[in-house]
């Protein structure tokens, strides 16, 4: 059971912290990953659109594709990833203790997490906000109507903190019921343990699909927080930090430059402009600067896809979630997605 894993994980991590953590910290993560022959990636235990196993047991989702892109950048093969499903409470300890190399698990970038946990947030792969899902027949139109309501929430998340910030300051009294996993939270909501389910809006879209009657509920438009989600690494390994960061930047730049998984090969052999040539390794040594091959970005785009392709396939139009690009559109298309240039 998950519960036992959780306890074991914490105790093992404590043991690891006390005995042998120095070895993890000082070793270069890239070398270790290469030597091991695979990437250890921490993901959500099951969140449709971000990371969940499909019918064949293959992990699917936006976070999963980030890990696969990283594997392509390092090994030239997107499938050299071992996925470790983690609950919200387990995730940081798993990364701190070296059990995983990178945490790609819809984790919100906050000051405490970035500054005091020995972790580094690399960049944002999904801009989100905390929203609320209610049953349509409650007839609730704004958060001010929620006085006295019970709210289902996942423990150990930023949502717990935001909720305690938001409602008391508005003088609205609410009750909470906390659960450990997204699934339990959704079943608590479905059984009527609470009136409202709160989480990132992207999660709400996913959890809604798990409900017996998805059409009987609505996701309210009001948001109470900023939730930038992205991959996290341990502090103290700048090379690894850069690799994860630039893997995401490569995917965003590829979308901006119109490089897709379909045309990457043709564009590599015949780059339409110098920017594409630099991205796909035809000019300069941008891959080598990271300690990777010069075709790192080519591998990512040809094997996994650019950011837009991955977005549409996992959470966007081609997925059951049908989340619109919104804030997550490119900067030149009305969104805030903006990657530093490769030059």
């Amino acid at each position, binding site marked *: 059971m998950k519960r036992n894993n959780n306890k074991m994980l914490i105790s093992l991590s404590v043991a690891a912290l006390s005995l042998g953590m120095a070895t993890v910290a000082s070793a270069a993560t890239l070398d270790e990953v290469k030597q091991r022959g695979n990437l250890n990636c921490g993901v959500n235990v099951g969140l449709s659109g971000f990371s969940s196993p499909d019918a064949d047991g293959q992990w699917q989702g936006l976070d999963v594709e980030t890990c696969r892109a990283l594997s392509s950048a390092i090994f030239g093969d997107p499938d050299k990833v071992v996925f470790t499903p983690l609950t919200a409470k387990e995730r940081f300890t798993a990364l701190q203790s070296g059990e995983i190399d990178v945490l790609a698990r819809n984790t919100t970038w906050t000051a405490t997490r970035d500054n005091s946990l020995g972790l580094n947030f690399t960049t944002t792969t999904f801009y989100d906000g905390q929203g609320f899902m209610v049953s349509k027949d409650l007839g609730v139109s704004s958060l001010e109507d929620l006085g006295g*309501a019970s709210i289902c929430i996942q423990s150990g998340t930023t949502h717990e903190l935001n909720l305690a910030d938001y409602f008391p300051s508005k003088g609205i009294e609410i009750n909470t019921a906390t659960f450990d996993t997204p699934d339990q939270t959704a079943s608590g909501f479905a059984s009527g343990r609470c009136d409202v389910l709160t989480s990132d809006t992207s999660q709400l879209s996913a959890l809604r699909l798990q409900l017996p009657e998805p059409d009987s509920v609505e996701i309210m438009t009001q948001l109470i927080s900023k939730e930038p989600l992205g991959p996290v690494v341990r502090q103290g390994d700048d090379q690894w930090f850069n690799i994860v960061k630039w893997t995401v930047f490569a995917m965003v730049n590829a979308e901006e430059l119109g490089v897709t998984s379909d045309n990457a090969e043709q564009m590599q052999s015949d780059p339409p402009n110098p920017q594409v040539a630099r991205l796909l390794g035809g000019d300069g040594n941008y891959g080598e600067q990271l300690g990777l091959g010069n075709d790192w970005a080519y591998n990512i785009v040809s094997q996994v896809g650019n950011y837009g392709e991955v977005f549409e396939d996992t959470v966007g139009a081609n997925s059951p979630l049908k989340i619109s690009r919104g804030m997550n559109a490119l900067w030149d298309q009305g969104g805030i997605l903006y990657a530093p240039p490769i030059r």
Partner: protein
Amino acid sequence: MPKPPSSHVPLWRRPAFRALIIQALLLAGLVALIAMMVGNALSNLEARGITTGFGFLGERAGFSIPQTLIDYSGDSTYARTFVVGLLNTLLVSGMGIVAATIIGFAVGIARLSPNWVLARLASAFVEIFRNIPLLVQILFWYFAVLQALPSPRQSLSLMEAVFLNVRGLIVPAPVPEAGFGLTLTALVIAIAASIGFALYARRLQARTGKALPVYWCGAAMIIGLPLLAFVVSGAPLSWVMPELKGFNFRGGVTVIPELMALWLALSIYTASFIAEIVRSGIQSVPKGQVEASRAIGLSSNITLRKVVIPQAMRVIVPQLTSQYLNLIKNSSLATAIGYPDLVAVFAGTSLNQTGQAIEIIAITMAVYLTISLSVSALMNVYNARTLIKER
């Protein structure tokens, strides 16, 4: 003829001295190992930029907890979170120990009953609940039983005062008014009088053999006297009735379903073990004891209470202690259904929000150790008192 001990034996060949040296070396080695582990952990944590120390206990926790026995809000500190969690752990453990003991004794005695149906039912109870993992039972009570209850609007209600629904059990909240102190005073007096009466009755029986109805008189006093005071002072107690307003019931006291599920599961699971302990304790009393007491004309009720159980207790108590300790430790499974116990709110949420795993896990372990050792010490005192006195 053995040589008499002589002071000529060199120091290092004396067993007592060597034993002392070995013990000292062992202790020094252990201390050095622990110091090395602590030092290593601290330097590693610092090297990795992870904050250490207990300063976080004074910081604002910033999250809410569904059930708190003391005042608590999102503005409270992590230290208060810890106290809230600890009290919730003690609450469910205390309730569990009381219920498990009552159910366990009843089932254990029933299993030896000459009534065939009763004995078989008791056996079935033990075999079912002893052999299913506790976590499964907790999830069963929570998800299969309590989550299947109706929504607040369709609550099951008793006289429109007590309501049961998927959000929990809602009962009226008592509000004492001026003059209620008299009732409380009467209760204290009644309890003191009952104890005095019981002591007197025991002495009277020892002297004359005459038995007084101690239980009936005690019960009459403890119930009757406060009731009398309550009526005389004009019933100074009002009730806040739960009322369905908006989403939920307002007013009244809500017992959250997480507490009910955990309490049910812990009580019943532990009771099945206690039942077996009670049965083995009773069976360890030689049959001759029962036959002898029947021979002098004691009823089977008196035989059980005054002859069998007292002798069985010395077998029962040590094992009962371990079951109590198990129950307390098992209450940490609360986190599976979101009951806000120490492990869920402190070793879970607080740990996750602050990231200070080593400090929080150390505190949590120390707390469980302290609770367990205290219970164990209390039970040992009780055990010493129930031991058969050899005269």
